């Protein structure tokens, strides 16, 4: 059972456009959501994250919008650059007592065309 879902699987935008990547989750106990960026041949790297007490988090060209009631998030990348071409993973932290685990979605492959 996929607890964190991402859409679309792949997305192509032109340089300068805004890319919108979607994420949804099922477990209402998830309370912290990091987004990771992964380039081919590399491990994922933390890009931006949001806590469930916030509805928006901004860092430069990257913004997370969070709707707790609908259990949905989206990552907006404004003024997309070819260097942003990568796979983006939405993840969610599940904590149970002293056990903290990250659950990842399947990712969205973003291609930015010059």
């Amino acid at each position, binding site marked *: 059972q996929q607890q964190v879902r991402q859409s679309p699987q792949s997305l192509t935008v032109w340089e300068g456009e805004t890319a919108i990547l979607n994420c949804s989750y099922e477990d209402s106990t998830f*309370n912290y959501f990091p987004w990771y960026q992964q380039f081919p041949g*590399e*491990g994922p790297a933390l890009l931006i994250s949001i806590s469930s007490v916030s509805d928006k988090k901004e860092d430069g060209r990257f913004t997370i919008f969070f709707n707790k009631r609908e259990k949905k998030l989206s990552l907006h990348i404004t003024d997309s650059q070819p260097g942003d071409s990568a796979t983006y*993973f939405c993840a969610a*932290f599940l904590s149970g007592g002293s*056990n*903290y685990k990250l659950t*990842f979605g*399947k990712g969205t492959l973003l291609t930015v065309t010059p």
Partner: protein
Amino acid sequence: EAGVTQSPRYAVLQEGQAVSFWCDPISGHDTLYWYQQPRDQGPQLLVYFRDEAVIDNSQLPSDRFSAVRPKGTNSTLKIQSAKQGDTATYLCASSSDWGIYAEQFFGPGTRLTVL
């Protein structure tokens, strides 16, 4: 500061063979994670340690997979008898903190192909 290092970077095996992956976390990071990332999927947690203690290994196929971190620093993940379904990239990550806000730093991974 050096990042998380892993070796080997690639491994190709026949079914039934054994393989070990080695991870050196960032210095001072007491929490270490092993993930399996099948092609075109997100990382899936196999096991994680705090110092030398296993905190969660519920997703580790215990009949063929084992992981150790004897001195609370480096770690080894071993597959005893590999299957084609084990084909994936194996990622190691480490963090300096404990809890949901702990940023995990990933190594480049070991890409395993089982023929």
